[in-house]
């Protein structure tokens, strides 16, 4: 019996050291996106984008002397701050992730940052939170985003509308941090440029009846209706109701509204409408598209390139700090993202890791031409889209 106990103890000891060994070579990155909720149709491509970068790094074996990068998914739900925070808590405390790629929607991103990331000192890079409020949020240097602030999008929207000679618009936004932030930014920019916003009205997601909202919007009038909502949610409902009642026939779609669903739901009814969402015609975008197609997901999906970049930046920063501890690598994110250094595009992460190891500078361009400015957010590149023959296509980059 004694021998048996000894043997068991010895085996236990050996396995535990073996586990510890494996742990040292494993970097866990949390991927917190709204896999359910208003953005559930675009998040699969975003998650796949981030995991593509992780697989690439794992295969290279160059990160921190051959560490394996493991993705651990969490559901932000996009709208429920409580659920998002507990998902993040779980990833940080029980799965022990080193950093978080996410979250997606602005409201939950702010909640995770304040309630989970800051108290635990974990770096988070969001690929798609665009609320201007996050630029000034207290973040202890832990928060970055590869998406531009909506203050920038407000200006782009104004430019596009003015180029088309539109002077009067009605505006509706989804009643949350993203919608309100974008609506305020746009209204400020548009009015400063001499335009008029006839009405700015909120709509709630998850309802099916929007006749009251559309009635008010139609009464106020305007040459176009700006729909700052979500394509899977109220945004589409507003558009449907506006077309049916003849309230508006030209729409402007910001980033949350641009998606395959629009073609599916409306098709030719939207001919002549337009919009813009983040994207670039840089070399990196095309390369990312190739990689995504090879990996079997839709690389044109909104924020999929930004997700790849967010994950890549986390790993490059770890390499630069030679540590997987957030406190060490948080200061390196800006260094690897910006000039000087050799430009790095998707598919070249192995090269970047080697360069950093040799002590050379890199300038990560990635899939979305990353350039982090100010408090660590993307400077922003947008692609302008227009509907013709029942589907949208990119006509211009801004």
């Amino acid at each position: 019996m004694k021998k048996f106990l000894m043997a068991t103890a010895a085996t236990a000891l050996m396995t535990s050291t073996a586990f510890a060994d494996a742990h040292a070579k494993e970097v866990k990155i949390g991927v917190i996106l709204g896999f359910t909720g208003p953005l559930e149709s675009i998040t699969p491509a975003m998650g796949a984008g981030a995991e593509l970068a992780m697989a690439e790094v794992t295969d290279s074996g160059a990160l921190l002397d051959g560490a394996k990068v493991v993705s651990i998914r969490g559901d932000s739900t996009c709208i429920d701050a409580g659920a998002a925070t507990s998902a993040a808590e779980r990833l940080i405390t029980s799965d022990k992730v080193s950093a978080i790629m996410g979250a997606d929607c602005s409201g939950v991103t702010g909640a995770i940052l304040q309630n989970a990331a800051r108290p635990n000192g974990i770096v988070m890079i969001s690929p798609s939170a665009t609320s201007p409020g996050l630029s000034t949020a207290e973040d202890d240097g832990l928060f970055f985003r590869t998406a531009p602030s909506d203050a920038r999008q407000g200006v782009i929207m104004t430019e596009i509308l003015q180029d088309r000679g539109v002077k009067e618009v009605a505006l509706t936004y989804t009643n949350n941090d993203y919608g309100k932030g974008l609506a305020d930014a746009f209204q400020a920019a548009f009015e400063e440029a001499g335009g008029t916003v006839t009405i700015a009205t909120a709509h709630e997601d998850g309802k099916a009846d929007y006749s009251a909202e559309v009635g008010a919007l139609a009464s106020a009038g305007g040459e176009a209706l700006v729909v700052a909502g979500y394509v899977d949610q109220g945004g589409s409902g507003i558009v449907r109701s506006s077309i049916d009642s003849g309230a508006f026939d030209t729409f402007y779609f910001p980033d949350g509204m641009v998606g395959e669903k629009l073609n599916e739901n409306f098709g030719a009814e939207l001919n002549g409408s337009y919009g813009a969402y983040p994207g670039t015609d840089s070399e990196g975008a095309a390369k990312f598209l190739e990689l995504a197609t090879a990996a079997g997901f839709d690389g044109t999906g909104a924020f999929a390139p930004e997700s790849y970049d967010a994950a890549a930046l986390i790993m490059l920063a770890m390499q630069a700090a030679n540590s997987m501890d957030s406190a060490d690598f948080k200061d390196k994110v800006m260094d690897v993202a910006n000039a000087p250094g050799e430009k790095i595009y998707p598919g070249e992460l192995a090269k970047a890791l080697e360069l950093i190891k040799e002590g050379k500078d890199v300038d990560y361009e990635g899939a979305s031409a990353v350039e982090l400015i100010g408090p660590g957010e993307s400077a922003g590149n947008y692609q302008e889209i227009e509907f013709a023959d029942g589907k949208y296509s990119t006509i211009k980059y801004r």
Partner: protein
Amino acid sequence: MDLLNAFVALSNFVLIPAIAYGSQLALGALGVTLIYGILRFSNFAHGDTMAFGTMVTILFTWLFQSWGISLGPLPTALLALPFGILGCMALLLFTDRVVYKFYREQKAKPVILVIVSLGVMFIMNGLVRFIIGPDDQRFADGERFIVSVRTFKEMTGLEEGLAIKTTQGITVITAVIVVAALFWFLNRTRTGKSMRAYSDNEDLALLSGINPERVVMITWMIVAALATVAGVLYGLDKSFKPFTYFQLLLPIFASAIVGGLGSPLGAIAGGFTIAFSEVMVTYAWKKVAGYALPESLAPDGLAQLLSTDYKFAVSFVILLIVLLFRPTGLFAGKSV
């Protein structure tokens, strides 16, 4: 001409949508009110019952579409509706047999039954999501408009357009037929009278030889039919998404309570009260006023009483007022 424009604008954005929405709420509220009147509890699972019936209808609609059967300009869903109703009846009778019957035999208090229905709601909720998924489903086909904005403008030469969707027309017509049939059934048939007797006094009804189990069974079957019709009409007119049906529970209960729980007539009045108040109080009257009033009086602002953010607050304020001043609702139902 200007007055005509004002009226057309008002109809297009207020009257027609509110009438259609009101009919859908009224049908939903009728189901709630029947259960309250006869089985004596507030059935929280009603929204999800609607979702289940609609789901079965959608599945049959898809089947018919794949067989190439259609109703021409009318949506195929109307053809699938009877099957949806049968499916929903089966589910409700099954639920009654395995869940509610137990509590009925225990003579459980209404509040216990309410909580039980809450549990049933979560199960139905999951069942629907499990079978058809949480996403939006589109199943409307056929002609989309009876009158579209463009043809209306061409026909009349007015500045304002008017759109009447086929689904809105069908909603109102179906609602009228269903309500008429229900009232005829409750007031003229033996079974209907026995249901009302059971509702008034359970023990007396039992003594007069009314079989309570039969009354309960028929009530569930009628409720299944009402819920499915309401759900399908709502889904045709807007879109089918399990989550929206769950949220529909609130306006439906508001309608039933405003009208007076247990009173079928009240449920209809309540449905329209809630629908009209949601749309009218938050409507921006600028356009209508601009047409109707002389130039000097036309408002510069939006002339909007409340921002649309408060749309849902409106129905609850009405609910509160009614409960404060007429606790039994507009058409004296049972007090809550």
